[in-house]
């Protein structure tokens, strides 16, 4: 079976996000005064082969831990769908 993992990677809350701050300032300068905050992260789609969705999730979490994210600065969430 093939599963597609949608991985959302965000900077940990304690980490300043200068890109997000710059985007926020720009939105404010465009008079979007209702915008409260902007945080910029990454989105990845990874397709894996696995016998079932539980194994697929474990495999993708391993990929995140080993290479795709750096836990010192990033958090991630993921959702899996069969493809």
């Amino acid at each position, binding site marked *: 079976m093939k599963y597609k993992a949608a991985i959302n990677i965000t900077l940990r809350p*304690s*980490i*300043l996000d*200068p*890109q997000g701050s*710059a985007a926020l300032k720009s939105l404010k300068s465009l008079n979007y005064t209702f915008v409260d905050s902007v945080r910029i992260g990454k989105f990845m789609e990874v397709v894996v082969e696995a016998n079932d969705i539980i194994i697929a999730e474990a495999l993708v979490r391993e990929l995140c831990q080993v*290479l*795709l994210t*750096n836990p*010192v*600065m990033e958090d991630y969430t993921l959702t899996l769908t069969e493809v």
Partner: protein
Amino acid sequence: MKFAVILFPGSNCEVDCVHVIKEVLQEPVTTVWHKDTDLSEFDAVILPGGFSYGDYLRCGAIARFSPIMEAVIAHAKAGKPVLGICNGFQILTECGLLPGVLLRNRSLQFICEDRFIRVENNLTQFTHQYSKHQVLRIPIAHAEGNYYADPETIEKLESENRVVFRYCDEQGNLTEESNPNGAMNHIAGIINEAGNVLGMMPHPERLSEIILGGDDGLALFESMLKTWRDRI
């Protein structure tokens, strides 16, 4: 003293390092391709600056899995010196030889200019030819040099005197403007617990000859050489 300078795809400061070791320090040096796996003949390893693997994913994240990195880690665990400059520092944090991470510069800009750093710890094998709190003028060239670690790690680094270099002004003051990238506690370089792995964002190899406008970086390489000579 036999130096190895590791060449990753995308490294771009390896020639400067080789030049300083060979022509200025006058010691043997070899450029080692990242697919090699053996560093046993070398006394010191330098991870040079650049953009290994195009900085894809995160700076240094892919380089840490290059075949040579197992040998670099073994070299470090054996207590031999490893110097990571700029992208080399980023690789050292990604592979876990040094704590923390280098975040995007506070200004979001790539900064390429001479800056001042202060020698915080001159009792390391990389800095004993400097005096304590000596101010160095030294080039920086990076977009991700904003050192970050969790508060416990920062406290540990500070209490163990492992912050080796801090950004400062020309007089050695830690002013807000003197911190080019927003690094926590003005950190420009740190050393591991064992004292044999140094990571720094500034480029000592770029200012090690008077003909290039200054040689504040040279004493770092001379410190390494003297440590090695005193040991044999």
